[in-house]
């Protein structure tokens, strides 16, 4: 590799390969292979219109669909020390971070927002699996603590959408310490008698499942989400036998008493409105589309993709 092949050639290629249409108009369903048009895909919240398979969705897209009129305010998350261990594997941790930030357009693996759902004020936090596997490091810990503190301050329920491969190895022991840290956040809500609802999405595994994701007042999951502590591959290696079909999937956990409900993404908003209003002692929600609330909230642009 030299300067010409690294820099000049891609530049020349990019000039000649500029197409009239963006290349992401169509997405193939990862389950049934159906080609889905981007608008259709977006309207159906990345759920396949053919087979109902739930594909990943970014926190920002989820919030736009979740909050009334797509309007929410981001809750600020205190920035942690960058690269606390000066970790390097085959790549340096800060380089991995930069790549993830560039790839997702987000700062880190969790987004926290305040807003209304069906005129019910809530705080929501969502983990971004596309950002380094949603892994839980200091930032995610800070985000959950900030979300809990905001919920307590504003006396609102917290709805948390989990999605992560587990702890962020590049932060070593400090990522492990997010298990007790986020548990403290859950306790803040508990002491303030505020509902804490966890929506477990595909996949939620490892230290994330073994802390804040399993400590909710209500556990809801999206269909077929993988939810586990030890992943199926690790277990197969340990016990040396094939695991049954559907093992550690949402429906399986529902059967085994670990979840309250399995709900389709397209019905999640209504579900959350109902549950938060019931727990907060509010009258039933008015059904139908509501205009965006006026006031302090500012519209968020969908992230450029």
């Amino acid at each position, binding site marked *: 590799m030299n300067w010409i092949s690294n820099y000049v050639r891609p530049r020349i290629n990019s000039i000649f390969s500029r197409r009239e249409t963006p290349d992401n108009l169509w997405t193939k369903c990862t389950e049934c292979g159906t080609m889905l048009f981007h608008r259709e895909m977006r309207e159906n919240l990345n759920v396949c219109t053919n087979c109902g398979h739930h594909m990943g969705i970014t926190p920002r897209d989820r919030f736009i669909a979740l909050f009334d009129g797509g309007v929410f305010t981001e809750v600020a998350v205190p920035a942690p020390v960058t690269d606390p*261990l000066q970790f390097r594997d085959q790549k340096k941790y800060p380089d991995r971070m930069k790549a993830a930030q560039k790839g997702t357009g987000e700062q880190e693996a969790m987004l926290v927002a305040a807003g209304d759902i069906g005129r019910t004020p809530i705080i929501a936090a969502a983990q971004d699996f596309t950002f380094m596997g949603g892994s839980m490091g200091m930032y995610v810990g800070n985000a959950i603590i900030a979300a809990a503190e905001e919920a307590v301050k504003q006396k609102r329920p917290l709805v948390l959408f989990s999605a992560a491969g587990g702890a962020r190895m590049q932060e*070593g*022991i400090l990522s*492990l310490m997010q298990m007790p840290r986020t548990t403290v956040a859950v306790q803040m809500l508990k002491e303030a008698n505020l509902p804490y609802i966890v929506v477990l999405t595909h996949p939620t595994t490892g230290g994330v499942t*073994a802390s804040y994701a399993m400590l909710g007042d209500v556990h809801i999951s999206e269909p077929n989400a993988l939810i586990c*502590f*030890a992943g199926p591959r690790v277990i197969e290696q340990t016990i040396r036998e094939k695991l049954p079909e559907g093992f550690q999937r949402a429906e399986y956990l529902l059967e*085994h008493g*670990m979840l309250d409900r399995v709900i389709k993404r397209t019905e999640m908003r209504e579900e959350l409105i109902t549950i938060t209003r019931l727990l907060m002692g509010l009258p039933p929600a008015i059904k139908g589309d509501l205009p965006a609330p006026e006031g302090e909230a500012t519209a968020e642009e969908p992230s450029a993709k």
Partner: protein
Amino acid sequence: MTQYLEFEKPLAEIEGKAEELRALARENKEMDVAGEAEALDQKAEELLVSLYADLTPWRKCQVARHPDRPHCRDYIDALFTEYTPLAGDRNFADDHAVMGGLARFDDMPVVVIGHEKGNDTTSRITHNFGMARPEGYRKAVRLMDMAHRFGLPVISLVDTPGAYPGKGAEERGQSEAIARATQKCLEIGVPLVSVVIGEGGSGGAVAFATANRVAMLEHSIYSVISPEGCASILWKDAEKMREAAEALRLTAQDLMSLGVIDRIIPETTGGAHRHKEDTINGVRSAIAGMLADLSKKSPKELIKDRRNKFLSMGSKGLAA
């Protein structure tokens, strides 16, 4: 008979030679080997000092996992009187990977909880190599509840490769059991002190070690993932465990500088497996010291301090 670790091989050779000489001398009374054997002993001693003077993180992992290292049962036998094991999670089973019960430490009634790895094939299988199932964490929750109600300090001894990755463990809610144990650690209004005596393996360790004070033996480790596991994920090669051990900063010394633990308990040169008694005594005085630190605090203060300790943890990185 000492079990030598891979990096202790040169030492094994020298000590073996000295032993051979002495064996020869025992058979043949006329032979005078005292001088030569002593010289070898001297050489072995020097080598041991130099080997242990600066252990790499991977070597520390090996020492921490040494089969002859004192285990939970050894500490319980030596440090406590009237140890009364209490069994079961009142739900499904008794998990033998977790020992626990009532006991006296310096005559003071306490609750003790710890992972036990076992010392030989049979006991290792009985104790599942120190890998707890949900029942183990639920037993710990039950014991911590009891400690809270009766005002008994809790002492936890951490030595686990991690929570058991098995089918039944998952079915019965391994994640939830660990999360609840961590939560219980944060809720109890009694002193909770923890000592990592060998391996502090990930969530399985956190469930017992979310404590007011955490101490680690000099050559013990505490990590989010095993070096082998980390190497196979990040390096795509499990053989890169040396590099992973280095990068993860899993030694007691690193954790001390990160502000994750409160004290390091020194091990005599050659490690805990060569000096069981010294090590156990070191742990005894560390526990006594940590409990003394906390003795004046009210239940509310204990809960608040524990919480704040974890909330502020890691805010400075290695510069802490």
